[in-house]
């Protein structure tokens, strides 16, 4: 039984380990359109993106080799950013984009066209991919580069155009493995958003945590960049030392109500108070800055057996009021969220299913067990769409087909590109079935 990170909607598929590209070619060639085939990485998408009920799911994590040549990473699709970072940080390189967890694969990062704290400056993961190899629906291996239809449809294509087997990615040279971070506490949402609008361009990385239970929308803004050698205290042994270690593990079983308004309120209060009113130039580590939750193994279990979802949307700059409205609606619905994150995006990628666009993105983790949530989120979907925004497929576990097509005006173009790559219609996922993503596809 497979689920996404949110542990909702489990379905069964035949899991099949692949060790090289030839295995992938064989598996895709043998696949039939009835239930289809899909590649899966580390299962960090929140909803049903990496599930294919009744079909074949390729476990790509057994194809995890990679090499670095100068500032170019050549990685098999199943290589995790965790493994990559362990190898390249001590050599003075960093991945071009990292999400809030390093436990994602290169293939998944490309297929979901993930973004990170540097989106406003450096764009999404797909913008740093130079070439990739894709096994298409006919079992052919296609090597593609930016500019081609195969590339554009596969970046953000959620694995429905083919199986990515290998990618070449530009890396970022770094002088140290430390981060130089500025932290500011803001008492309300307006002040927080104003600070981001005014100052984000001065930082490579920027993200804000918002207290979802505070009516004012108070938050903590953390921004920074890789520290230079001069930033480190004198006598630092190894400026490129990198040692990410998980510290805690959530218990395998948690009661459904453990994460409630009271515990979330206590957490949010502590998190807000812990942050300094203003602190400049703090030196911290890569894991502490980028991947704080990776310090707790299986943190997704704290939401109990019913699981959780993450509601993430983006709206253009002129619809920034949607951020406050969404926070208000979720608060009124009694949805406790300890992880609510606000970020400004830069311009989007030209891939038709890529999520980011210039504007504001809000992401809130919410327990799935709250019944009022359905209607509240459906109504919010409508507001986001009316404002010209859209929702992130890698987080989605519940939106409607109408919400999808309204948010992605290039969907028809993507479907045409997809059909050309998969004329037999063998690539499928639970999410694609739920949203009619590949609808109109042959046969």
């Amino acid at each position, binding site marked *: *039984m497979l689920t996404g990170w*949110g542990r*909702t*909607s*489990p*379905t*069964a*598929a035949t899991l099949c380990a692949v060790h090289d590209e030839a295995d992938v070619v064989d598996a895709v060639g043998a696949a039939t359109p009835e*239930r289809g085939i899909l590649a899966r990485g580390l299962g960090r998408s929140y*909803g*049903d993106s990496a599930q*294919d*009920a*009744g*079909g074949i799911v390729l476990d790509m994590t057994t194809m995890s080799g990679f090499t670095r040549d100068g500032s170019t990473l050549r990685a098999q699709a199943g290589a995790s950013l965790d493994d990559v970072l362990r190898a390249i940080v001590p050599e003075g390189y960093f991945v071009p984009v990292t999400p809030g967890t390093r436990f994602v694969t290169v293939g998944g990062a490309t297929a979901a066209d993930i973004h990170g704290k540097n989106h406003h400056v450096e764009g999404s993961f797909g913008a740093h991919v130079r070439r990739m190899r894709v096994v298409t629906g006919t079992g052919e291996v296609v090597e593609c580069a930016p500019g081609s239809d195969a590339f554009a449809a596969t970046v953000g294509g959620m694995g429905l155009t083919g199986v990515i087997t290998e990618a070449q990615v530009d890396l970022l040279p770094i002088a140290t493995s430390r981060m130089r971070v500025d932290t500011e506490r803001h008492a309300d949402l307006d002040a927080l958003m104003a600070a981001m609008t005014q100052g984000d361009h001065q930082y490579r990385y920027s993200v804000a945590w918002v207290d979802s239970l505070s009516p004012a929308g108070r938050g903590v803004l953390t921004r920074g960049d890789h520290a230079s050698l001069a930033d480190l205290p004198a006598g630092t042994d190894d400026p490129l030392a990198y040692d990410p270690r998980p510290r805690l593990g959530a218990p395998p079983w948690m009661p459904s109500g453990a994460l409630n308004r009271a515990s979330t309120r206590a957490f949010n209060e502590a998190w807000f108070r812990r942050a300094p009113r203003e602190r400049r130039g703090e030196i911290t580590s890569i894991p502490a800055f980028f991947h704080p939750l990776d310090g707790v193994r299986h943190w997704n279990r704290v939401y109990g*057996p*019913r*699981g959780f*979802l993450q509601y993430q949307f983006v709206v253009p700059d002129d619809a920034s009021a949607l951020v406050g409205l969404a926070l208000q609606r979720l608060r009124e619905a009694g949805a406790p969220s300890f992880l609510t994150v606000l970020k400004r995006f830069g311009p989007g990628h030209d891939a038709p299913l890529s999520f980011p666009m210039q504007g504001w993105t809000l992401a809130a983790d919410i327990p*799935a*067990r709250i*019944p009022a*949530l*359905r*209607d509240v*989120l*459906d109504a919010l979907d409508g507001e986001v769409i009316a404002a010209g925004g859209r929702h992130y497929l890698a987080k989605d*576990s*519940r939106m*409607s087909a109408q919400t999808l097509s309204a948010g992605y005006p290039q969907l028809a173009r993507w479907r045409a590109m997809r059909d050309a790559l998969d004329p037999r219609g063998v690539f499928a996922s*639970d999410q694609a*079935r*739920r949203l009619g993503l590949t609808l109109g596809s042959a046969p």
Partner: protein
Amino acid sequence: MINAVGQAQSVLVLGGGSEIAGAILRALPAARLQRVVLAGRRSSVMEERAAELRGRGIADVETVDFDARDTASHGAIIDAAFDAGDIDIVLLAFGVLGDQEALESDPAAAVDLVTANYVGAVSVGLHVARRLRQQGHGRLVVLSSVAGDRARRANYIYGSSKAGLDAFAQGLGDALAGSGASVLVVRPGFVRTTMTQGMSEAPFATDADAVAAIVVAALAKGRETVYAPAVLRPVMAAIKALPRGVFRRLPG
């Protein structure tokens, strides 16, 4: 697919005229519901239900001839329903109550009732399970009855058919473990419907909407067995523990 907040997209009702099934269709979160197949004996009730569902904006509503006794037809009916698209929830809701006194003096009629309630359910249930297993997801809701927990003098023929159905449904649920599909066994008590009209009410009598609310909540929680109303669980546990001599003397 049923999404993360329990919104289903497609439902197949076996026993399309069933009042409890109708109430469940009204109670299910319906914002994503786009396809309903009502399978049952041709009746104005089923056609009215189909019209009501279309009136609610459900794009694809169809009615299909289905006779629980005609087991030879089941495979083709179930395949046709699933071939047109995945089915998220199957409601096995058909059943005949019968008149116990008349049945006792007419064994052929008793066989007919048992054939519909039990044999028909085994047949169609296995066909449904085969397709759910293939698609790797889906919920089968089986409307059993507290009458199957312990057969009473007053309705033991019906009760025995429900006892068989209940045991079958539980076993089927176990057989489907790990397949992505699962079975919810519902044991209502006395439900005020046209089927029970004119009968004297049993204690803890309920109505179809109340049963439906319990079924929808149980689906959301992923439960495998549920009583309606919930109080019948301890009540039936106590009744099952009664010695024969005492149970036989109970009223009703």
